[in-house]
């Protein structure tokens, strides 16, 4: 039986500051599911995402907004939000221990539509040195243009290893 959740592409990297998944968006889908199940990082902090334009270049202009509800097992829940940034921030959080990976599920809406903005909605569960850290987040790239891929990066430090999987919701 044909299904409507279709694997498109996977990308991996080691000892990188960011990871781009190129040419993963197309006119074949309007909504995408991104799965990130394992990262090893050098600095305990948040991860960000930004997008690649029609030429495959990273869009780093100040045209991203985000809002995130941080869900901590060891402290008060947090409200994080900002506008006019160079990336959608706070899409996950992980610590530096090898065991402290993450599970990140992120939906991306309408990236390839040149007449609409690109939106994200996601949730993640991670682990910092203090305990479990999860979150619910939304974001937008405020430019109506064709987006062909994504760039996953850290707020600071590097990925020792990282894998990103992209699926189309047809």
């Amino acid at each position: 039986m044909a299904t409507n959740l279709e694997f498109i592409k996977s990308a991996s990297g080691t000892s990188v500051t960011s990871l781009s998944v190129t040419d993963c968006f197309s006119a074949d889908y309007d909504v995408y599911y991104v799965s990130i199940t394992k990262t090893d990082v050098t600095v305990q902090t948040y991860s960000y995402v930004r997008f690649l334009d029609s030429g495959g270049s990273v869009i780093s202009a100040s045209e991203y907004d985000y809002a995130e509800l941080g869900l901590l097992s060891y402290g008060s829940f947090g409200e994080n939000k900002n506008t006019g940034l160079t990336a959608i921030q706070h899409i996950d959080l992980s610590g530096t221990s090898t065991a402290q990976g993450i599970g990140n599920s992120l939906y991306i809406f309408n990236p390839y539509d040149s007449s609409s903005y690109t939106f994200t909605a996601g949730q993640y569960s991670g682990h910092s040195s203090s305990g479990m850290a999860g979150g619910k987040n939304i974001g937008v790239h405020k430019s109506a243009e064709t987006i062909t891929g994504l760039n996953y990066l850290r707020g600071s430090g590097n990925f020792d290893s990282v894998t990103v999987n992209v699926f189309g919701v047809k």
Partner: protein
Amino acid sequence: MAGSLIKIDEEIVTSAVASVTLGGANWDSSYDVYMVKINNLKCDVIASPYARFTVSGTPDTSANYDWADKVLRTDTTFGDVSNTNQTNFTEIFLSTVDTVTGSAGNAIHYLYNMNNSSEYSFISFEETTRRHSGVLFGHQGGGVHTVAQACDGIQYVANGQNFSSGTFTLYGLKK
């Protein structure tokens, strides 16, 4: 995400309609969990859409809808929204949208226990919308229809206005 998504129904809005119904005659009762994808939804003027389940293809408007959610937004403190015994899921699925540049509603909804006549039907939702005001906005939460009955779809209503464009797609989550 275990399993696979099987498309059951889809409505693509290209001209003004007051509501959209997924399921009904197209409903496939062979799934335990369903997913609805809503993308790039716009209304002809500012509107706050709502939703309700259908029974035998007809919207159930009984006052038995409860929900609770967190409102994420970029302009001010996040909000807590909840209500009980309402006639629909109001202002939790999609924020106000219209045709202003960049204003659009996008959401993922999961529907649970829709086919079980001895249990309530549930919904969980996540939304990412740029409102007519330009604020990034989204509801994250869940709801329940407190009637033990089988449901066969969901209706989205533009709440006195019209949907002008957007796509609604219903999937079954195959085991």
